[in-house]
């Protein structure tokens, strides 16, 4: 009797474990977030998956799979090798992923995949502590040009990652000669970097606005510049870099790709469905809520954009000495 009770308990445990794997029928749509739960790619998959279902653009639920590894490289390799013609599969990517590809850190080149669309973008910002003597982008550039080693800069990427590159683009535009002399510190996230700046460990943070918006509202930090074409609707007071004479934009867009052997028809069908999703109130709301600026680029236009961005990124990476 006792034994039987135990067996049932354990069977229940095994079933619970199996359920958590979210086993779904083979025909279900799947979105792979090439990261652990909690990051930007995870948000892309979970939000888009949820809204696709809510709008009846897919049958049933979209299965979300987390496949972390190599800043997206593991998923990229898996899709290329095993699922390049699986039209039910979409994968989250962003500027961060394209930067990795441009720097040759993925196992296969850019055109291994078909890029579907971007649905929104986080805007890069350059910020300092509210008590910092640096009042404007001009002050910052002056300080960096005078002595590139004077300030400690930080963000959520390693050296050569997108947060770092955006800062160097600003410095480059401002005429700083020795870009590699600028000190850069990597933190696990934008808020980590900001709190370390508030604690006085570092001087300047370059990262996405979305994650650190709370500190802008509370007045703990001062944003010197938004790296966007137009002022950000939620923060109209933040001046753009362009308005201060520094011609740099630095978006971190969020989008999706699918396997390289997916047929034109199925590719077009995804682009259509994603455009419907983009135009829905649900997406506009969800995107704005998480600090994204909704931006649409889909299909061939997006393919061209991704290629152009990869080229630009490769060039910048070469210029600043991240790759040879």
């Amino acid at each position, binding site marked *: 009797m006792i034994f039987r009770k135990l067996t049932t308990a354990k069977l229940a445990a095994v079933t619970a474990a199996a359920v958590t794997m979210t086993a779904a029928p083979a025909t279900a749509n799947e979105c792979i977030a090439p990261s652990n739960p909690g990051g930007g790619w995870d948000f892309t998959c979970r939000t888009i998956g949820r809204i696709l279902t809510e709008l009846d653009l897919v049958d049933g639920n979209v299965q979300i799979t987390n496949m*972390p590894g190599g*800043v997206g490289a593991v998923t990229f390799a898996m899709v290329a090798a095993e699922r390049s013609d699986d039209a039910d599969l979409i994968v989250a990517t962003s500027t961060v992923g394209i930067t990795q590809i441009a720097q040759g850190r993925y196992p296969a080149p850019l055109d291994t995949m078909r890029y579907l669309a971007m649905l929104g973008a986080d805007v890069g910002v350059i910020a300092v502590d509210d008590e910092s003597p640096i009042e404007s982008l001009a002050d910052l550039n002056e300080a960096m040009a005078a002595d590139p080693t004077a300030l400690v800069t930080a963000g959520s990427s390693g050296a050569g990652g997108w947060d770092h590159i955006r800062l160097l683009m600003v410095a480059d535009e401002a005429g700083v000669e020795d870009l590699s002399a600028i000190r850069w510190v990597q933190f696990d996230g934008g808020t980590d970097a900001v709190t370390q700046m508030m604690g006085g460990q570092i001087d300047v943070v370059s990262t996405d606005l979305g994650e650190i*918006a709370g500190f802008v509202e509370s007045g703990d930090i001062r944003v010197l510049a938004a790296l966007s074409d137009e002022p950000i609707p939620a923060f109209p007071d933040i001046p753009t870099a362009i308005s201060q004479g520094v011609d740099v934009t630095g978006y971190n867009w969020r989008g999706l790709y699918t396997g390289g052997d997916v047929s034109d028809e199925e590719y077009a069908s995804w682009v259509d469905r994603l455009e419907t999703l983009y135009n829905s109130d649900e997406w506009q709301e*969800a995107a704005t809520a998480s600090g994204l600026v909704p931006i649409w680029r889909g299909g061939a236009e997006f393919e061209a954009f991704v290629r152009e961005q990869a080229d630009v990124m490769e060039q910048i990476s070469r210029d600043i000495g991240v790759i040879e």
Partner: protein
Amino acid sequence: MEILSLLGQGFVVASTPLNIALLLMGCFIGTLLGALPGLGPVNGVAVLIPLTFTFGFDATSSMILLCAVYFGCMYGGRISSILLNIPGDEPAIMTTLDGYPMAVQGQAANALAISGVASFVGATIAVIGLSLFAPILARAAIHFGPADYFALYILAFATIGGIAGVDPRKTLLSALIGLMLATVGLDPISGVPRYTFDSFHLYDGIEPIVALVGLFAISEILMLLEKTFKDRPKAIPVGSWLPQWGAIWRTRWAMLRGSGVGFVAGVLPGAGASLGSFMAYVAEKQTSNKKGTFGKGDPRGVAAPEAGNNAASGGALIPMLSLGVPGSGTTAVLLAMLISLNVQPGPLLFERQPDLVWGLVASLYMANVALLILNLPMIGIFTRLMMTPTWALMPIVAAVTFVGVYGISNSVFDLEMMVFFGVIGYLLRKFDVSLVPLVLGLLLGGDMERNLRRAMSISDGDWSILVASPISIGLYILTVFFLALSVWLAVRDHRQTKSERLTEG
């Protein structure tokens, strides 16, 4: 007073029938997930997120459900540590040191009860700390810079020699292997791959939970296979099925000390629950191990790390809510969840959404009570697990670990990795090398290195930054004190045994 009235409002928010039902469900699921090797709070919380969307819960209800799962996992992780010597999740490794020996001695019921009550005490102290001091503590924690975190990790590793095993040299060896394994993966600063053998699977390093499950669960299965060939394994005698309250009461100081240490580790976003339970165990051993009973089934060795682990998990909510900085994988998921529910964690959260914050705090008090009530009667059922013949139990453990580890990353590579670690674990056990320091090295080594490298980036390579702040100097002094104390104790014990031998001889 103001806090009390806010908290009162919070209880009103949390006491709706829906929220109470979610709370109980979360506690139960959490305990189950925590007890299963491999699956832990990160997966549990991530899996339940779609559910909150499907049912359209508001932010408060969703957070109550997910935090109940989080706390439940912390309770559940210890169960398999004690009964099977297999930790259910990372912070539960310290509980194997004394919990399993207690179970082997027929004290499983006591060990489970002590760990349950210790979890309650730790988590409750953390929630009290959260309600009273959250904003102040968060403001204090930001002054901890990379160099200070590095000093904290130095302190932790300096004490590692004393945690387990007969031979401190083997413990150090084990910790060193762990530290070496922690260097696998992309270099955190420059992005250059290290020891990855051109495999993208190794770019993010070795997933600690995969190594942990392999080292403990798979090696346990291998040990059992070997034993079965040699002789028929005997079922472990089960003492009483009911815990003795006196035994729990005797560990009260260990629980309080463990809670204090764990809470501090939790509030620091760069530390976390694993460091919390580890430091709580070491601190307790330094204070109380007068008769050398630690590691052989001392109840205080169960109480301190469990209180520490739960206090740290509760403490980790402070930087998450008031700064938006996640201190752990689980809080990172909770954070993403909050953001997608249109709640912006950070300095203004407490002012702008008091209903959410205080409803959550109140529900955490309730979750703790619920978990205690849920867990104590289950002790009887769990102890009977010990009576299951191992030939029946172990295949199920094997199945659960494989399913659990595959469920984390959907990767066959992780399964192979787990088996690889199982073999390493088996070999190390054959040489009497404790596995706990290895896992600690792997878990904490990465963070230690990142903070050192960050400090070096800040100072442009000037090592003096490591001793430039009062916090780090204080931590180094503490380290020296700890080391001196261990050496002194070792010398004293050595003399004592020598003189005992002389008098006996």
